[in-house]
């Protein structure tokens, strides 16, 4: 990976608590490069206007940029049409839309919704709510001991009563990369649809929704060097077409009568209200940035970082790493605990050394229960991290261990 990449991220060039910042919390949100910040600034300084209305020039420019971003996203995930790309607030909103629209229309009493133990809360609770409302059964696919998913367990969980299978592509805790393509095939054999939570995948892997043959795919801009507040729901056209909107108001309507209204065509019927225009513009700039480097290159870099981090962190006595031991099976996420030191305390000591990691349950309480821990610390790597960041982390962890063995 080109060492100059870091210089494109102005935020990384600062000291935190007297030390150069090492940012290892990209799985929570990524930092933003200069071209993305510049695209937002330019949009607000020159083009800002509402879209799809009015005849003035700014309105046209804003509309072109917004719809141009949609084309960019379509190519980025290889969807067959821009009609399959819905701009929403983020992955959470996208999954909720599918649960409330597709789910309510298609899931009946006694039907099954299948998810896994490694889901983020945003891919659990929308299904819990749907299952409760419809009298459906929410089923969890068991994990293997190393935190991976076996197709055998997938086959055991999915039946002819299954209507929806929803699974994370890359786990935000274990870093596991799941065989979503194979799972989609099994789901389809039983007549179920397959939803993929791609929040941790889109920033790091080349996504091809046609190759995966998933029915829905959701991801967020802010985890892939784009702005917060913009996300994408991809859905197969025939499914989206049959679905009712869940948000009603301006922008999404065709004709409004006193007692009845009709909706715009895809994808706008799902984009009620003034859309997230600047967010989409920023997301397009983020995609350009990532593609210039190359998603394959980014994925390779992350495997390398994960392998190196696991190797060096693993050498610290009393440090336990969760998830697959084989770095080839995981993305650049390393979740761990230091024996006898609570992850909050680890994170505070690291913060005092200028190193940002996440500590807590990572919005995955069922997974924490499965791991039999109440909380963990997590270091997540992205394209701007390099080997020196791992060295700083390891040094910080050793100091944390030493510090707490002294005070104990």
């Amino acid at each position, binding site marked *: 990976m080109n060492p100059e990449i870091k210089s494109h991220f102005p935020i990384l060039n600062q000291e935190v608590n007297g030390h150069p910042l090492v940012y290892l919390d990209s799985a929570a949100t990524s930092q933003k490069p200069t071209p993305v910040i510049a695209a937002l600034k330019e949009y607000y300084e020159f083009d800002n206007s509402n879209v799809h209305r009015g005849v003035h020039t700014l309105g046209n420019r804003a509309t072109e940029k917004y719809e141009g971003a949609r084309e960019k996203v379509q190519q980025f995930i290889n969807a067959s049409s821009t009609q399959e790309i819905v701009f929403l607030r983020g992955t959470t909103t996208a999954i909720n839309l599918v649960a409330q629209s597709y789910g309510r229309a298609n899931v009946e009493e006694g039907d099954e919704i299948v998810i896994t133990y490694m889901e983020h809360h945003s891919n659990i609770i929308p299904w819990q709510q749907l299952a409760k409302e419809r009298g459906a059964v929410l089923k969890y696919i068991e994990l293997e001991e190393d935190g991976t998913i076996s197709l055998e367990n997938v086959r055991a969980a999915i039946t002819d009563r299954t209507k929806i299978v929803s699974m994370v592509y890359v786990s935000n805790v274990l870093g596991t990369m799941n065989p979503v393509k194979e799972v989609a095939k099994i789901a389809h054999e039983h007549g179920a649809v397959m939803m993929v939570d791609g929040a941790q995948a889109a920033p790091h892997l080349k996504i091809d929704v046609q190759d995966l043959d998933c029915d829905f795919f959701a991801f967020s801009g802010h985890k892939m060097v784009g702005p917060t507040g913009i996300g994408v729901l991809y859905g197969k056209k025939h499914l989206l077409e049959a679905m009712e909107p869940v948000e009603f108001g301006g922008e999404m309507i065709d004709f409004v009568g006193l007692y009845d209204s009709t909706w715009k065509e895809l994808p706008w019927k799902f984009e009620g209200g003034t859309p997230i225009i600047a967010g989409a513009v920023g997301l397009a700039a983020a995609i350009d940035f990532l593609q210039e480097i190359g998603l394959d290159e980014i994925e390779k870099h992350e495997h390398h970082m994960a392998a190196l981090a696991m190797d060096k962190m693993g050498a610290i006595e009393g440090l336990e790493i969760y998830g697959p031991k084989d770095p080839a099976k995981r993305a650049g996420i390393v979740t761990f605990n230091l024996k006898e030191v609570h992850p909050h305390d680890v994170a*505070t000591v690291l913060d005092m050394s200028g190193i940002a990691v996440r500590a807590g349950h990572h919005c995955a309480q069922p997974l924490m229960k499965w791991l039999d821990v109440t909380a963990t610390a997590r270091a997540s790597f992205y394209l701007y991290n390099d080997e020196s960041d791992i060295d700083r982390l390891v040094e910080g962890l050793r100091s944390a261990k030493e510090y707490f063995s002294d005070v104990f």
Partner: protein
Amino acid sequence: MSFNNLDQLYRQVIMDHYKTPRNKGALEEDSVNIEMNNPTCGDRIQLTLQVEDGIVKDAKFDGEGCSISMASASMMTQAVKGKDVDTALKLSGIFSDMMLGKEYDDSVDLGDIEALQGVSKFPARIKCATLAWKAMEKGVHEEEKS
């Protein structure tokens, strides 16, 4: 690496409470039983109080969490035990002011609690320290209502 700033947070007395918590466990005869979580980080406290005639006769806690949250729970139970409810709530108010870095009433002897003052310099950790106190306040209010 030296961590002078950390020493303000992890004072000896805090680590002592963390290592050997006072009043750990659950009361067999409780009048108040409160469970409270810190949803963002997974800290959990189960607080049992025995309140009689407006006095906190006994207090115990159980739970899981970081050094700050568990030490604070230990100190809280120690501080409120034997006090009347108004005093316990007053202490909670003083503690809250202390955490927010406000001027606080120092006419009351705070004992070990004073050691937690350094937490106010670590904004991300304030909620760890206040969890047990919030549980106590909630418990006392519920008791008053019943």
